[in-house]
């Protein structure tokens, strides 16, 4: 028996901007159904790594594969179609849309009907229904018809995840999902993250160590574009190198 194919894997993934190496030969594997945290000090290359995975950045070297399919050269939108979906650290929504519209649009993309021009939504009402169900599932049903930019920040963060879920991901990359959410609004968000379906492999970047240890079943520590170490939360918590990096990083400010 061979080992099961990881949901997402990289080998030798490298990228540099001039002298600055943001990814240095990263070998990484995300098993199916994972709950994996990517941590590291500021400037470690976490967001660049996600950008490489989604295709927003083109690597200088190395390969990326999604469930065994090589996607290194693939444009972003096709990676999404194959199930590789991300959210953004800085909320990136459709300000004048309602949540229902945002999700329906995403579902239309997923179902391959978004290019339809001459037929309206009359025959696609099941897609809007699905969008609504999804919104209800993450607790946004009562905001379905509100204008996105008028929503409280916490709800926008939820919608950020909702839009990603509507693409029906197999691998979901969450870039600091709870960043900046005030405490009284964060409950629903954490619930939604906890309730993510088991068949989705989730990798998230997070600075809040409480959240990391609450959700992650495995952790990768990235420093200066390189994988410093990998392990279970317990292993990482014990790791002397990690402590040093974090303390050092704090002192460097």
């Amino acid at each position, binding site marked *: 028996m061979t080992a099961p194919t990881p949901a997402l894997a990289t080998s030798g993934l490298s990228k540099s901007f001039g002298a600055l190496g943001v990814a240095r030969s990263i070998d990484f594997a995300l098993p199916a159904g994972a709950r994996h945290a990517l941590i590291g000090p500021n400037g470690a290359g976490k967001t660049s790594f996600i950008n490489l995975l*989604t*295709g*927003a950045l083109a690597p200088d070297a190395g390969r990326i594969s999604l469930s065994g399919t090589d996607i290194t050269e693939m*444009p*972003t*939108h*096709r990676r*999404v*179609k194959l199930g590789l*979906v*991300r959210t*953004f650290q800085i909320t*990136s*929504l*459709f*300000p*004048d*849309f*309602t949540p*229902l*519209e*945002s999700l*329906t*649009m*995403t579902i*239309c*993309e*997923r179902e391959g*009907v*978004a*290019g*339809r*021009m*001459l*037929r*309206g*939504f*009359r025959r*696609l*009402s*099941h*897609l*809007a*229904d699905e*969008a*609504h*169900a999804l919104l209800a599932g993450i607790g946004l*049903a*009562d905001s*379905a*018809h*509100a*204008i996105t930019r*008028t929503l409280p920040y916490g709800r926008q963060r939820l919608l950020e995840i909702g*839009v990603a879920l*509507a*693409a029906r991901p197999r691998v979901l990359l969450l870039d600091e999902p709870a960043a900046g959410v005030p405490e009284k609004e964060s409950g629903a968000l954490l619930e939604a993250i906890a309730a993510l379906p088991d068949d989705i492999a989730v990798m998230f970047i997070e600075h809040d160590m409480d959240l990391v240890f609450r959700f992650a079943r495995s952790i990768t520590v990235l420093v200066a574009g390189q994988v410093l170490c990998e392990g279970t939360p317990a292993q990482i918590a014990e790791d002397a190198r990690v402590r040093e990096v974090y303390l050092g990083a704090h002192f460097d400010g």
Partner: protein
Amino acid sequence: MESIAPGAGFERRSRLRAGEVLLWLAIAAAPLYVPGHLVLASQILITALFALSLDLLLGYGGMISLGHAAYFGTGAYTAGLLAQHGWSEPISGLVAAMLVAAALGFAASFVIVRLSGVALLMVTLGLGLLLFELANALADITGGSDGLQGVEIAPLLGLFGFDMVGRTGFVYAYLVALGAFALVRRIVHSPFGLSLQGYRENPARMAQIGAPMAARLRLVNTISAGLAGLAGGLLAQTTQFVGLDALGFERSAEVVIILILGGGGRLYGGLVGALVFMIGRDVLSEANPEYWYFWLGLILVLVVLFMPQGILGGGAALLVRLRGRAALGEAAR
């Protein structure tokens, strides 16, 4: 807790509203109440159609163009040259105008989808100016700055000649404009239209929801160019003359002003803008030929100060206030 049925937003949005029907009926009745101004009425319709073509691109797709007259003029010259060379049947001439402009739009779209913001603005402006200079240089074909003469158009359907009062021209422009509005209405209320607006709202996110936007932007640029060509062709046929100004920077700038004035991304913004701008200009330049620019400028300034979303946007906001906050979500759309 939830009063609106799941998914209701979409069907409701695309349902024909009474106001729209009334609007088109009111326009159709123009010969009854402004029988002496049918030429102005058809030129307003033509400008509205031109603004609609830009609305698809700018109002819905969020892509600025300061060279849209390139397509308008291409349509005008296509229709005009066909008629000048003996092809005087109007409908086929108009279709040709649309197709040639669309082909130009398709070719230009490969350049345009790579750009955004100010660069897009200036490159579209540059392409428009290049085409203008080309038409001036090819004076043997286009008539240059003297304009294209000898544009003779056969009666519509072989029955209705283009009369001096402009009755045939008006009906013709009305029907074409109505058809174009119906088409664009369809498009913007389709999944394609939704993704186009998604691009306007957040271009960077579209790829991350799996949308192949480059191809769609090319398509919408092509359609928009075709509609602009349709408007240009209509003008050439109803005026029976094509001047270089059909391709001019002033026309490109004016249509942007008209659209923003009316309110972009609202389907009827171009029509409202064209009505206000062109009637305003007609009345003001009649009343005060030397200084009408001042009053027109004042109107623009006041609209910006009091209705920053354009006239339609201002109207919608007013409605919201009248109806109270409950309707906020719907009316602001």
